[in-house]
């Protein structure tokens, strides 16, 4: 593991992490833009989320009377764990030292840590909305997280590793074949991603006062830079799931070595993948209605079953 301690590798990884953080609002903006087009509305400029964040960072914070220290700490923990999670996932470069720091299971653990604080922050003020959001978020997570882990286990068994870099490398090396296990895992991961990032049909990111909201209910009391951090973390999480789907299952184009050409190719390939994935998500969101809250467990049970079938089909059909 000595090569993981070279300063150049860490510098590259750090740059990649910064790129993650910087690119997150753009992806969210792209989805919003396509949705506007599909709904015959005039879209805001592509850079609008950055303007929103800048405006929020400049605003004064107003705290609720009953808010405790945990409420003020939570945005930083949520944002920090999300950035940490992003730093683990290969974006353009495969071999990054951070992938050895935390494998795919730790990635799920980091998301869970952020969610733990997000839910506690929702309950901190003591309003019904906060408790409602926290309760729903934890219920959704309790079903989505095992499904996510099952997807990871399937990939880990296929690649014989839980290290994200190694998984992607193995995917590239292996001859292309339509494996049923990977197909099931891909479907399950997409469903989990939709649930975890609070998209339609599970949650509606565009609503503020609706009795079925989940994510917005928890951050209802936030303002100023705390709200900005929460929003940014949510956008980053969306991007992480999109990159996981595209880089784990369609890894072609990702840079194996850190040469300028290969990184440029990787950037072009990733942009193409994300643009198409974002378009697909926008189309899907525009064409389905939001689900009733108590139908959500069925949706997630399907995801869990798909992931389990994926894993079992690997164990039974493909393992040698």
């Amino acid at each position, binding site marked *: 593991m000595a090569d993981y301690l070279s300063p150049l590798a860490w510098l590259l990884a750090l740059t990649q992490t910064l790129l993650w953080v910087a690119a997150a609002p753009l992806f969210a903006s792209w989805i919003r833009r396509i949705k506007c087009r599909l709904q015959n509305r005039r879209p805001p400029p592509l850079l609008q989320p950055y303007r929103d964040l800048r405006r929020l960072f400049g605003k004064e914070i107003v705290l609720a009377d*009953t808010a405790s220290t945990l409420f003020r700490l939570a945005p930083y923990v949520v944002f920090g764990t999300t950035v940490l999670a992003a730093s683990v996932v290969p974006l353009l470069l495969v071999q990054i030292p951070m992938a050895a720091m935390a494998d795919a299971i730790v990635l799920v653990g980091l998301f869970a840590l952020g969610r733990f604080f997000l839910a506690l922050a929702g309950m901190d003020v003591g309003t*019904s909305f906060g408790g409602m959001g926290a309760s729903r978020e934890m219920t959704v*997570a309790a079903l989505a997280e095992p499904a996510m882990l099952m997807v990871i286990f399937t990939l880990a068994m296929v690649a014989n590793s839980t*290290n994200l870099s190694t998984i992607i490398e193995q995917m590239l090396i292996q001859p292309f074949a339509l494996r049923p296990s990977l197909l099931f895992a891909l479907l399950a991961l997409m469903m989990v991603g939709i649930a975890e990032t609070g998209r339609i049909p599970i949650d509606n990111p565009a609503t503020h006062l609706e009795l079925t909201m989940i994510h917005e209910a928890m951050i209802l*009391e936030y303002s100023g830079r705390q709200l900005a951090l929460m929003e940014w973390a949510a956008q980053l999480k969306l991007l992480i799931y999109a990159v996981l789907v595209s880089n784990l299952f369609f890894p072609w184009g990702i840079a194996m070595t850190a040469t300028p050409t290969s990184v440029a190719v990787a950037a072009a390939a990733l942009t193409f993948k994300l643009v198409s994935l974002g378009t697909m998500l926008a189309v899907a969101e525009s064409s389905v209605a939001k689900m009733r809250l108590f139908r959500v467990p069925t949706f997630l049970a399907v995801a869990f079953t798909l992931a389990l079938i994926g894993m079992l089909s690997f164990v039974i059909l493909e393992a040698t």
Partner: protein
Amino acid sequence: MLLTSEWLTVAAIASSIGSGVAALAAAGHPRLQRRLSFALLGISALVSIVVALWALLGDAGFETSLPFGLPWLHWQFRLDPLAGFFLGVIGLVTLAVSLFGPGYTRDYDRGPYSLGVLALFTGLFVAGMQLVVIADDAFAFLIAWETMSVASYFLVAYEHQQSANRRAAFLYLLMAQIGAMLILLCFGVLAAFAGEFSFTAFRDASIDPAWASIAFGLGLAGFGMKAGIVPLHVWLPEAHPVAPSHISALMSGVMLKVAIYGLIRLLFDLLGSPIWQWGLVLLIVGSVTALYGVLYALMQHDLKRLLAYHSVENIGIIFIGLGLCVIFIGTGHPKLGVLGLIAALYHTLNHALFKSLLFLGAGAILQRGHERNLERMGGLLHRMPWTGLFFLIGCISISALPPFNGFVSEWLTFQTALQAAALDSGVLRVVIPVAAAMLALTGALAAACFVKVYGIAFLGQARSRQIRRAREVRTPMLAAQGLLAGLCLLFGVLPTTTVQALARVTDSLLDQPLASATRHGWLWLTPVAPETASYSAPLVALGVLLAIGVWAAVWLGLRRRRVVDPVPRQGAWDCGFGPLSPRMQYTATAFAMPIRKVFQPAWRLHENTEREMDPLLPTRPLRLTHRIHAEDIAWCWLYAPIERLVFKLARRVARIQTGNLRHYLAYSFLTLVLLLWLIT
């Protein structure tokens, strides 16, 4: 001479017995009693930690026999790394308890209960546990085991004026005795092959596989009854809440671990080479126990009862690790088996730490807020900030979130399970991933449960008057919680060092070194190989710390520029309906409602809603009460039928109880004749 590990162990045990005796001797001086007994208990704990470290890092093993016991079998004791590890677990929790105890038992000064009795049985309880782990023959083991069980019975029954407590204690005693009987039978099977009762003879004996499986079954049921595997767990949620909180911490944190010790000793030491089918049994039992425990925990409103159900869950997780270990060893993959055992031992240590931390926190709330019911708590973080911080650390640890200790052991268990592809048997390759899925579900549900606990108890506004007036507990009590919280972080951040120490235990039990896990220095934990999986807890912890550091820097920086101070405070958003009252907050029942809908068949729910209407305006409700109680389905499916059967049989047998003296004389005569006939 005095500084040998033997004498240190003797000193530890003598000191814990002495703590009880001293308290009896100082009866009538409660202050002195408390200080003396808990100081001696603390010394005992420190000495056992020293012995444990010596056994794990150095070479402290000994074998000795004491001139007590049966004429042909003197008590034999032996310290090996396994015993040393468990001695350390006992020591760590007892140390925290001895700090917490003096402040906590202050409340009993005014009550009707005797402090001397409490201290005596606490001392005997701890001494019993210490003796169990170093006992080296079946006779000494069972004497120590029974000392532990009976002493803890008196501790559960300590507040005996409430009938519910007596009932819980009786149930506990009953189950403990049945468990001890099963362990006795298990040792009996082994002794039949070994010819005598010492563990050395058990080890050397070659046991017929069928009888070994019977012994395993008896041992699993006997030790499992104490550990609380489903469906033998029913005493646990009854007994733990009614004991004084520091005793609950000892019982849940350590006594259950002593049962795990017994099982490990039986499986890997006494029975020789385990068979993989046993591992399958352990794995299935463990998965069911883990999921069952967390589902029932979600439905509880009593904080201590909820924690007791979480103990059931964590015992299940330990069993999953043990099961994986036995499966891999039985199928000829000893390296992977070692990994499973390490995961199980690591989780044993972790559970001891965070569960006692949480029980001590519950004790702090109970002392200052006089409340165990979650529905009446709220806003405690404002009133008890330090307890709140330590309790939060406990909640994060038990929810298996990085970078705390619970995560490391679950991660190791997952990594072991992921190696299932190496197995030949198709059944195992399917069962192990399904068990891993159940473990994943358990972990996620545990996180939901602890968001509920912390969010309802410590955040929001106070829901009752006592809670609103709660004060922070005394400094030593905080120090006890701080110690455990610090250890939770320490064992979470330094997993490689811990695994290195644990490898001594597995090395001595299985003769199988685990070099690959720790080969790459303290920074990296690589259970199988670096390219398969690696985890660097210090770096993850650094990342999280960085986030908290940024917050602190922003806050301090802005305060210096006088931007933050004072922060504008407003009422929370009330939808324009006027101020929010504490009654409008989400309750624990409401929080768990979506999960209740999803897993409905898991419980037998008794729901009761009463609505009282205004007589003048029938559409206006005056009062609304909603009660929900989740009855343990093990009661209705297993215990209630057994209870009915016993009563039915008893009624049959009662027919011979005529009350006539002559009949009884006839019975005695017949019995005598029968016995004489049998003898001749």
